[in-house]
C-alpha cells in the first residue's frame, strides 16, 4: 500500500495521514456549521471528552484496545496479500470461544489458569474461523474477500443461535449467558494499577490493553524479524518472486489468515473477559470493520495501528460525549465524522497524496524523494 506518488518516507508515514485527518475534520466542521452548530465547540467537546479526563482517556483506550486487535488482524493478512474483511466474524467467534471456555471452566479453574485458557480458546476459534476461507482460497480458488464477508454473517448467526437456544438461562428474557465466575474476569486497569499503588478511575479499560500492545510487538517481530514473516511478505508483495524463491504461497495464505483470525479472536478478552463478564450479543459491534480503516490509516504497521486505534477510540468516546453535551448534536453526526475520517484517510488517501507531494516539491529542503 505504498503511495504511487514519490514522497519521502516521513511524509508518507506522518504528514499524509495528518493531512487526511485535517481534511476530514474540515469537511466535518463544514457539515457541523451547516446544521447550525459551532464546529469549534463540537471539536473541543470531542477532544475534551476523549482525552480531557482520566476517565475519558480510559474509555478511549478501552475502545482502542479492540481496534488494535482487529487492525493488526487486517494488517497481517494484508502483508500476505490478502484482504481479510472477516475480522468482524473472527472476533465474534473468538469471543464465543472465550465465553464458552469461561462458561464451562470458570467454576473449576483458578484465575491464573482460566485467563490463559480463555485467551487460547478465543485465539483458536478466531483462527479456525479464518482458516476455512484461507483454505478455500488457497486450494479451491474461492476469493477470500467474498468468503470472509459471508463468514461474518454465519458467525453472528451462530452466536445468536447459541445464545437464544442453548446458553440463555431458562426463564430469562435477555439474550445473554449467565455471568462467569470471578476467575474468568480479566482485571480492570484501575484494579491492576491499584495493586501498584496508582489511583485510577474505574472504567472498562482492562489488562487486555497490555495484551494488545504485546500483540503489536509480536506482530512486528514476526513480520520484520522472522523468516516466516519474511516469506509471508514475499508472497504478499510478489507471488511470482516468492514462487521463484521456493516459497509455497498456499501455505503462506493459510498462515497469514490464521494469524489474522487469531488476532481478531483476541477481541473477546477485552469485551467478554474484561468488561461484560458474560457472553452477550453485539460485543464486536462493527469493530472488525473499523479495523480495516485502522489498518489502512496505520499503514499496516503496528506503531501506526496503535495511533490509528487511539484516534478511532477517541472518536467513539469523544463522540459519545459530544452527543451528550452539545444540545441538538445527535449520535448520527458523530458517525458521520467517523465516516469522513475513514473516507479521507482510507479511500481518498491517494487523491490527497499527489497534493501533498506537489506541496513538498516547493519545500527546498525536501528534494531527496
Amino acid at each position, binding site marked *: 500500500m505504498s503511495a504511487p506518488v514519490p514522497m519521502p518516507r516521513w511524509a508518507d508515514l506522518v504528514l499524509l495521514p495528518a493531512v487526511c485527518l485535517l481534511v476530514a475534520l474540515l469537511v466535518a466542521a463544514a457539515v457541523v456549521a451547516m446544521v447550525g452548530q459551532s464546529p469549534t465547540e463540537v471539536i473541543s467537546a470531542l477532544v475534551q471528552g476523549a482525552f480531557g479526563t482520566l476517565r475519558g482517556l480510559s474509555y478511549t483506550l478501552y475502545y482502542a484496545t479492540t481496534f488494535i486487535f482487529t487492525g493488526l488482524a487486517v494488517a497481517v493478512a494484508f502483508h500476505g496479500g490478502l484482504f481479510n474483511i472477516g475480522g468482524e466474524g473472527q472476533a465474534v467467534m473468538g469471543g464465543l470461544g472465550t465465553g464458552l471456555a469461561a462458561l464451562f471452566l470458570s467454576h473449576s479453574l483458578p484465575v491464573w489458569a482460566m485467563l490463559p485458557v480463555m485467551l487460547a480458546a478465543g485465539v483458536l476459534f478466531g483462527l479456525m474461523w479464518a482458516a476455512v476461507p484461507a483454505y478455500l482460497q488457497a486450494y479451491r480458488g474461492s476469493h477470500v474477500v467474498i468468503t470472509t464477508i459471508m463468514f461474518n454473517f454465519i458467525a453472528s448467526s451462530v452466536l445468536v443461535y447459541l445464545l437464544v437456544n442453548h446458553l440463555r438461562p431458562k426463564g430469562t428474557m435477555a439474550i445473554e449467558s449467565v455471568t462467569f465466575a470471578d476467575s474468568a474476569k480479566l482485571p480492570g486497569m484501575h484494579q491492576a494499577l491499584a495493586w501498584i499503588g496508582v489511583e485510577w478511575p474505574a472504567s472498562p479499560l482492562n489488562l487486555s490493553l497490555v495484551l494488545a500492545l504485546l500483540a503489536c510487538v509480536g506482530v512486528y517481530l514476526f513480520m520484520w524479524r522472522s523468516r516466516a514473516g*519474511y516469506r509471508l511478505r514475499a508472497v504478499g*508483495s*510478489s507471488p*511470482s*518472486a516468492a514462487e*521463484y524463491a521456493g516459497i509455497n504461497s498456499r501455505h503462506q495464505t493459510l498462515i497469514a489468515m490464521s494469524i489474522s483470525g487469531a488476532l481478531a479472536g483476541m477481541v473477546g478478552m477485552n469485551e467478554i473477559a474484561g468488561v461484560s463478564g458474560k457472553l452477550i450479543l453485539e460485543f464486536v459491534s462493527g469493530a472488525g470493520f473499523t479495523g480495516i480503516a485502522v489498518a489502512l490509516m496505520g499503514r499496516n504497521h503496528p506503531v501506526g495501528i496503535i495511533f490509528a486505534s487511539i484516534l478511532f477510540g477517541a472518536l467513539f468516546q469523544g463522540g459519545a460525549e459530544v452527543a451528550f453535551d452539545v444540545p441538538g448534536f445527535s449520535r448520527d453526526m458523530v458517525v458521520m465524522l467517523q465516516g469522513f475520517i475513514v473516507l479521507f484517510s482510507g479511500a481518498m488517501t491517494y487523491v490527497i497524496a499527489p497534493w501533498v507531494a506537489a506541496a513538498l516539491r516547493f519545500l527546498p529542503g525536501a528534494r531527496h524523494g
Partner: protein
Amino acid sequence: MAETAPLAVHMQGIQKRFGAVHANVNVTLTVRSGTVHGLVGENGAGKSTLMSVLYGFYRADEGAIAVNGRPVEINNADDAIALGIGMVHQHFMLVDTLTALENVMLGAEPHWLLGKASATVRGKLEALIQSTGLHVNLDTLVADLPVGDRQRLEILKALYRGAKVLILDEPTAVLTPQETLQLFEVLRGLRNQGTTIILITHKLKEVMGLCDFVTVMRAGAVVQELPIAEATIEGLAESMVGRKVNMGRVEGSQRAAGEVLLEASGIEVRDAVQVLRLSGIALSLRAGEIVGIAGVSGNGQSELLDVLSGLLTPSNGALRLGSESFTPASWLDPQTARRLGLAHVPEDRHARALVMAFAAWESAVLGYENLPHYSDGPWMAHGRMTQATADMMERFDVRPRNPSLLSSKFSGGNQQKLVLARELGQKPRVLLVGQPTRGVDIGAIEFIYSQLRAMRDAGCAVLVVSSELDEILALADRVIVMNQGRIAGELAIADCTEAGLGLLMTGGNA
C-alpha cells in the same frame, strides 16, 4: 530534406529534475524533417525522460520546444497528438480483447454508433495500409496477433491519429532479425513519404543501418549529435559509455567441456488449456561450457527455464541434476534445485528475481533465506544478511551501495547485478540465466559477460537464454535454437551465422 525546411522537432535547453536526479541537463535536440533520427544512450541517460517531455508525460523544468518551427506548449499526450507527434512504446499499449481495428479507433471513434465509426476507420486504415505497407489483419483480436503485427498496429495507430513525427522506443526488442528488417523497410518508406522518425535504441547496428542522424546522451546530457556518415559503432559506444568497451567474443580457456551436470530428455509441457508449450526437448549441460538458447521470445524458452529450475512440472520427461534424477511425478522444486547447486537468474527481474517492495538486503537473500549463515533460529540474521549484501554490492559494483534501499529504486542494470551477485555467490555447479542483459547498460553488459565467462572457466555448466542473437554469439560455446516449443537445431559456435540462426528461429532450415 532541404536545409531551409523548419526542424520537425527542436528541443532547446531542456532541464528536468526528479528530486536529486538531474535527468535532463540542458538538452538540445534538433530533428530535421523527414529524417530518421537515432537517440542512443545507456539506461538512465535521459532518453526516455526527454521523449516523455516531448510527448507530454512530463513537463520540463526549463527549456523550449518548437514543432515545425513553431514554439509549443505540450502539457499532455493529447497536446502532443494534436501537434502530430505519435509514440510507439516499448511495451505495447493495446487491448488484447479488442480487434486490431477497434484498437485503432479506441478513444478516437468518429461516430457514436460503432458500426458507422468502424466503417469510416476501416476505409481510412485500408488506405493507410496500402500506402505504408504496414500490413495487419484488421479483424483479428490483438491477443491472436504475432508480436511483429502488434508493432505495426501500434505504428498504424499513431499514423491514423495524424502523426508526422513518430517516436519509437526500442522497437526491435521483441522482433526476430527478419521482422526487424521488414520493420526497417517500412520505416524507410515512411521517411520517404515525409514522416519524421525518432528511434530510441541501444542497438548501435540498427542506428548505423537505419538512421540519418544520431544523438548520443550520457548522464542526462547530449554528448554528441552527428550525421550517420560520420559515425562508427565503436565511436558511438565509446561516447555512450564514456570509455572504450569490448562487446565482442572472448574465447574461454580452450579445454574441452567436462562431465554432464544436467541432462534433460523428452521434456513436454502443456499449459492450462492443454496446448503444447514444450515438446521433445532433450539437452545436456556440461561442466565448463556455456550453452546458448536462441529463439524469438515466446517459443518455449521461458517454460524451459522454469522446468529446469523446478518452477514448472512438465507433463512428460526426465531430468538428471548431478546424481539425482527426477520424473514428473516428483519433479524438483526450487529449494531442492538450489540445494543441488543449481542457480537460476530468471528472465523477469521485476516479477521473479527481486521483490520490488523489499529492501535490497531482503531481495539479496531471496531463496537463500534459510541458509544457516543467514539464520538465527527462526529469526533473520539481519546483520549478516546486510553484510553479505554489502559484499555482493562491492564485488558486482552495484550502485548505490546501500543495502537498505528499496529494490525498486535501483536501475535495471544494478538490479541485474544484484541478482547475479546473489546467484553466482552461491558457487553453483549449474547456472541458468534468462536474458542476462535485458534492459542493462552497455558498460554493465561487458561486466556481466565477463562474470558468466568466469563461471564457465571455473567449471560451472552455464545455460544462457537470450533473444539477442549478438549476445548468444558473444557468449555461447554451443547454440541450441528453439522454435515453437521444440529444438529446431543445435550448432557448435563455429558453425553459427546470424542468417542461419535467424532462419532456424523462424522455422526454416539452416
